[in-house]
C-alpha cells in the first residue's frame, strides 16, 4: 500500500462519526447488562491479550459498527454494544484460527452486505461515488478555462462600451468614475512592475 493510502487510512481511523449520541440513546433505552446505577458499565476488551493485536486492529478498523453509531468496530465505545462485541469476538476467533484478514472482511460483507464497509465498493454503480467528484472537478476546470478564454478573447472593448447600466431610478453613488479608478490602477500596476 502506498504511503498516501496509509496516511489516509490512518486519518480515517481517527476521524469517525459522532455516533456516541445514538449509541448512548440506545443504551438509555435499556437492554444493557450494566447495573442501573453503575455509570461505568462493562466493556469487552478491544483485543484479547496474546492475540494478534495489530491484525485485530487492522480488521476491526475496516468494518463499520452496525449499532448506528457511525464508528468503526475498533472505535465504538458504546458500552455493551451488541454489534461491536459480536464482531470483535468473531474477528479474534477467526484470527486465532489462522484466517486471513481479507477473508474475515469478506465474510462480514457476505453476512451483512456492503453496508458494513465504511466506504462504497469500487465497482458497479458504487464506483460513481468515487468518480463523480473528480469528474465534476475536471469538467468544472474545463468550464472555468473556457469562461476565462471567452472573457479574454471574445469580449471586445466596443462590446464593453455597449453595455449600459440599466436605469434603476435611484441616484448613482457619489464616487470616482470607474474609468478614473482604472487609470490609476494601470499606473500602479506599471509602477509595481518596474520596481
Amino acid at each position, binding site marked *: 500500500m502506498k504511503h498516501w493510502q496509509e496516511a489516509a487510512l*490512518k486519518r480515517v481511523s*481517527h476521524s469517525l462519526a459522532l455516533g456516541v449520541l445514538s449509541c*448512548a440513546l440506545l443504551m*438509555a433505552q435499556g437492554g444493557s447488562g450494566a447495573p442501573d446505577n453503575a455509570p461505568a458499565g*462493562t466493556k469487552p476488551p478491544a483485543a484479547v491479550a496474546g492475540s494478534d493485536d495489530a491484525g485485530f486492529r487492522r480488521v476491526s478498523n475496516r468494518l463499520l459498527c452496525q449499532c448506528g453509531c457511525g464508528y468503526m468496530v475498533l472505535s465504538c465505545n458504546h458500552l455493551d454494544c451488541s454489534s461491536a462485541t459480536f464482531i470483535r469476538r468473531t474477528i479474534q476467533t477467526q484470527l486465532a484460527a489462522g484466517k486471513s484478514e481479507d477473508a474475515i472482511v469478506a465474510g462480514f460483507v457476505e453476512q451483512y452486505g456492503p453496508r458494513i464497509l465504511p466506504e462504497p465498493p469500487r465497482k458497479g454503480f458504487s464506483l460513481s*461515488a468515487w468518480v463523480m*467528484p473528480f469528474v465534476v472537478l475536471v469538467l468544472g476546470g474545463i468550464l472555468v478555462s473556457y469562461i476565462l478564454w471567452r472573457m479574454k478573447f471574445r469580449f471586445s472593448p466596443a462590446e464593453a462600451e455597449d453595455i449600459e447600466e440599466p436605469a434603476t431610478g*435611484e441616484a448613482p453613488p457619489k464616487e470616482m468614475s470607474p474609468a478614473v479608478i482604472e487609470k490609476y490602477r494601470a499606473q*500602479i500596476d506599471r509602477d509595481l512592475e518596474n520596481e
Partner: protein
Amino acid sequence: MENLGSFALILAFVLTIYSIAASLIGLARRNDRLLYSSYRATGAIWVCVATAMGCLVYALMTDDYRLAYAAGHSNRALPWYYKISAVWSGQEGSLLFWSFLLATYSMIAVKLNHQTHRQMMPYVSATLMTVLGFFLLLNTFVVSPFKLLAMNHGGQMVVQGPLDGNGLNPLLQYPAMAIHPPMLYLGYVGFTVPFAFALATLITKQAGDKWIATTRRWTMVTWLFLAIGILLGARWAYAVLGWGGYWGWDPVENASLMPWLTGTAFLHSVMMQEKRGMMKVWNMVLVFSTFFLCIFGTFLTRSGVVSSVHAFAQSEIGAYFVSFLGIGILFSGWLLLERLDYLKSTQPLDSLVSRESSFLFNNLLLLAACFAVLWGTLFPVISEAVQGVKISVGAPFFNKVNIPIGLLLLLLTGLGPLFAWRKTSISSLKKNFLLPGVVSLAFGVVLFAYGVRSFYPQVSLILCAFVAFTIFIEFYRGARVIAQKSGQSLVGAALTLTQRNTRRYGGYIVHLGIVLMFVGFTGSAFNTQNEQEMAIGDKMPLGRYTLEMRDLKETDNPNYSAQKAQIVLARGDKQLGVLEPERRLYKASRQPTTEVAIRARLAEDVYVVYEGLSEDKQHAVISAHLNPLVNWIWVGSAVLVFGTIVALFPSRIGAGTKSSQGPPDQRREARPQTPTRIKDKDEALARSST
C-alpha cells in the same frame, strides 16, 4: 402561558402575510404609507415571535412539564443555563428559535435599509417575510412547541404533566454545545438577507452591484457565525464524545459545511464583481446556492432522509421543506435566467494569468468540495434507489475525496495573493514565487530529514509553509514601505497597513487561520492510540508517555453519578500530572456519558478516556490517544475569527500618516521633499479612490 405563546405565533404568522401583501400592494399602487406599514410589521412580528420564545423559556425555567416540549427536554436538576439551551435542543424549540432569529435579522435589515434602497426594499421585505412565514407556518400548525400533555383521570383527559422531565441529553450539557446551535443558526438564518437582496436585485432589474455593497457585511457576519458554529461543534465532538477525533463527516455536520463552502466561494467571487464588474451571474448563483443549502441542511437534519446520529426526531415536516425548496429553487432559477441580460460583465479579462483567474479556480475547488460532500451524503439514498443495496459512506470516503481537493485549495490560498489584479507578468511571477517556493521546499527537505515521508502529510505541511510565507511577505512588503515613510517600527507599520485596508489584510489573517488549522488536520496522520484493561498500579505505554492507574473513585450529585479514574501521566521518570477521565450516568435520562481527560499542549494532546469496567469488573478499560498538533486547529479557529472581525471594520485610509497625527508645521515637514515612487499597491489604490 402556553396560550399566550400559541396566540403570539398565530398573530406573527398573520402579520407576516399582511407584511408581504402590504409590500407588494404598496409597490403596485405606489402607496408609501402601505409600504411603511409593511416595514413596521416586521417589528410587530419580532415582538410576537420574541413573546413566544419568552413563553417557552419561561416554561422551561419554571419546570412546567404540562408542556410536552419542556417534559421531553428538561428536568428539575438541570442547571438554569442548560434549561435555556433546551430551547434549541429539540425539533419544535429549535424551529421556533430559527423563526426568532430570522424575525430579528429581518427587522434589522428592513430598519437599516428601507430609506436607502427604496426601490428594492419592498421585495427584500417580502422575500424575508415569505421565508419567515414558512417557518412560522411550521411553528404554528405542524410542530408547535406549546403542545400540552394530558392524562386520563377516570375516563376524562386532564391537562397534566409528569413530576419531572426527561432531562436534556447529557451530551448536550457542555458549554460549547450550549452555544454551538445558536451560532450555526445565526449562520444559516443570516444568509436569508443576502438572498433577499439578490432576489430583489433581479426583480427590480438592477445591474447587480448595489446588493453586493449592501450585503457584504451581512454575508461576512453570517459566514463568521457559521464558521464559529462548525468549529464549536468540532470542539464539542473532540472534548465530549470520547473517540479522539473532531470531525466525523456525519450528514448533519456535512449539512453545515456545504453552505459554508459556497459562502466562502461567494466572499471571494464577490470581489471580482466589486473590483472588475465581473461574475455577476455567478455571484447570484452562489448566494442562491448558499441559501438553499442552508434550508437543505435544515431539511436533512429534520426529515430523516439520511440516517444521522444527531438528527432530530423524524416528523412530517420533510414534505414541507421539499416543497419550499422546490418552489424556491424553481422561482430563483427562472428569475435568474429571465434577467441574464442585466447581469452582463462590464469588463473584459485582461490576462489569463491574473488574480481574477485564481479566484475562479478557487471557486471551482470550493464548489467541487461542496459537491463531493453533498454527493457522499446523499449517495446511500441514491444507491438504494438505483441498485436497491444499502451502502455506507463514512469518514474514509470523505477523507479520501476531500483531502486532494483541500490541498489544491490550500495551494491556491498561497498562489492567489501572488497574482495581481488584471495582469501578472512573468517577471513578476518569478519574483513573487521564487522566495516562498524555495523556503517551502527547503522546509519539505527538513521534514523529510525528520522522518515525515508520507505523501499527504508532507505535501500539506509544505503548502502550509508556502501559504504562511506568502502571507508574511504581503505584510512585510506593505509594512516596510509604511515604516520607511513614517518611521514606525515594522510591527507598528503592519498594524497601520492593516488599518488602511482591513478587508485585504483581515483576509490574510483569515488565511493564516486556515493554514494553522491545516497544520492541525495534518497532525491527525500521526495519531497513535492504545487501550488496556488496567487495575490499580498497572501501567500503559503511549508513545513516549506512560500512564499509571492510581485510583478509581465514585461520586454522586443530584444530576448524575460518576466513576472517575485517576491516572498518573509520566514521561520517563518525570511525573507530568494526573488525568481524571470519568464515566457519568445522568439520573433523569438514565443515559451514560464519557468525560474525557485531556492534557493539551501545542505539540500534542494526551487524550484519555475511561471506557468502563471490564467484563470481570476488576479492571478499568482505559483508552488513550496521542493526538499531535490538534491544538493548532483551535488556535487557527481563533485566528480565523479574529481575521474576520478585522475585515469587518471599515478601513482607515490615512491611518498612521504623520500628516494626520502631528500639528500643521510638523505635517509640512513630514511631506516628502521629492516625488516618491509608489511601492505599496494598496496604499496607492486607497489614494486613487479618495
